[in-house]
């Protein structure tokens, strides 16, 4: 239950690949290595127009992809992490958080917004992997819990976009309890007969997968996303065998019956809106 680094391409928004070209900012596609202009990325919903690779993006980009006209009211945006355990490994937790604030401009690993998707009101909570590996601590748990309360109060559907290495170790058991807390709240959302869509993106692992990410009325994922409970390295070390090709990809998880469908980011908004309009 921890985040981990993947050696595969695309794990880091590699700053060294970010270049200033005469006609604007561009990145190399981590998969096919072709240059992608910033303007092209926005137009293509951050999917490589050459190979279909889904670039790893954050809440700001997902909100812009999904909310009508990128209009939304941010909810509970002021919540920040405390350091209840005075945690210090190779670095103080408070320092890690401070560095993450500075690096990302975010307040924690999730943001929540109320807006419209094709005219339909909903709340979207979206995790940010750049903030301490998208790890789930008290703030993530609390913002999800409050978002669900908000949905119940205003009779709104809930979409949660997961992108996380799992629980935040620096909050230890406090993080663990967020699994129970978010799951309990989702039970209440279910009793209120409000739809919950869980969108799993690259990567979704550990305690996040083992709580809210797997509890959607529908669970959907982006192509190629790494989705699992245990990290591949841990499994490899445990069984002392190489892992089969495609293991723990969204396609693998779909095949084994734990996803409803895989959706290309460029068609995501339409498909989610269609589903919601039909089920409501």
């Amino acid at each position, binding site marked *: *239950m921890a985040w981990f680094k993947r050696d595969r391409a695309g794990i880091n928004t590699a700053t060294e690949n970010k270049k200033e070209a005469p006609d604007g900012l561009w990145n190399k596609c981590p998969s096919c290595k072709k240059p992608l202009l910033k303007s092209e990325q926005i137009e293509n919903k951050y999917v490589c127009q050459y190979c279909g690779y889904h670039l790893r993006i954050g809440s700001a980009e997902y909100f812009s992809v999904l909310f009508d006209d990128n209009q939304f009211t941010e909810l509970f945006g002021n919540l920040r992490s*405390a350091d209840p355990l005075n945690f210090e490994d190779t670095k103080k937790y408070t320092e890690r958080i401070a560095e993450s604030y500075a690096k990302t401009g975010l307040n924690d690993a999730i943001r929540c917004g109320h807006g419209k998707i094709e005219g339909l009101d909903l709340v979207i909570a979206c995790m940010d992997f750049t903030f301490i590996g998208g790890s789930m601590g008290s703030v993530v748990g609390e913002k999800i819990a409050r978002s669900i309360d908000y949905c119940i109060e205003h009779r709104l559907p809930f979409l949660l976009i997961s992108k996380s290495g799992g629980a935040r170790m620096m909050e230890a058991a406090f993080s663990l309890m*967020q*699994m129970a807390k978010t799951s309990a709240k989702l*039970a209440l959302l279910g009793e209120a007969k409000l739809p919950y869509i869980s969108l799993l993106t690259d990567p979704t692992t550990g305690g996040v*997968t083992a709580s*809210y990410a797997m509890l959607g009325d529908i669970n959907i994922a982006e192509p190629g996303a790494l989705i699992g409970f245990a990290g591949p390295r*841990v499994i490899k070390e445990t*069984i002392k065998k190489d892992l089969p090709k495609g293991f723990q990809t969204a396609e693998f998880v779909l095949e084994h019956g*734990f996803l409803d469908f895989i959706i290309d980011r460029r068609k995501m908004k339409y498909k989610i809106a269609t589903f919601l309009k039909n089920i409501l």
Partner: protein
Amino acid sequence: METTFDFEKPIADLLMQIEKVNQVAEKTKVDMSATVTELQGKLEETRKEIYSSLSGWQKVQMARHPDRPQTLDYIQMICDEFVELHGDRNVRDDKAIVGGLAKLGGHSVMVIGHQKGKNTKERQFRNFGMANPEGYRKALRLMRMAEKFGKPVVTFVDTMGAYPGIEAEERGQAEAIARNLLEMSVLKVPVICIIIGEGASGGAIGIGVGDKVYMLEHSWYSVISPESCSSILWRSWDYKEKAAECLKLTAENMYSNGLIDGILPEPLGGAHQNPTQMAETIKDQVVKDILALSSKDVKTLVNERIEKFCSMGVVVE
């Protein structure tokens, strides 16, 4: 042979000293009872001192003591008429989680718990108490049965974690645990959970959402094992002791952080020193809770359980 930890060496030394004095007394026929009494006093003091101030890592060692009582031991000691129930009705029977209906202090209850196994053969059979999805789904099946027939649920948590394997992933380890968290939070019967040994991460909380959650004095409970924490945060296996301190995984830490409802004291030297006494302590607490929780109406019971878990977490606004 009895397992002795490094921190128990002063105790072992004193025991040896007493033994020696006794031998000398026997041989020389000199009355040395005063010395023996003094040493025994010192032994008692040393024991109290050591076991009342165990570090995080020492607690982890205690929780893993090979002679430590496990779920089936407690069931045998505190329950009558235990009928074990098997299988998740889908894939197979997971031996790492056991469960069944039993009588406990006159009440019919559904007991469920991790079972690690006591010797090499048993441990392999039980997969070291590391359940696959089927274990969690068997547990859920039994909990739903308990709900249907209005029986309280008692769970014993003792695991190094849910099993990280290929088949576990294929069959939805994450979904199985997540489903249990959701279902347990709204289960319409009293749920009492006791961390009896190791409570590692999702594999532990997967049967650990209760109206009352207790830890035995020398058990541990956290989001990750100290070893894995060391490996990830320090990128080395050498910081497990430091990690155990940082994680604040002891019963005292967990209680003072408001993450569990109580600590059940262990016999001096650990549960394995006097399993019967430990079992009695557990039984008394469980019976008391069953009575108190059964008197609540279902709505209050469930709301309070949800409220308890939802209040966990520390944020700054």
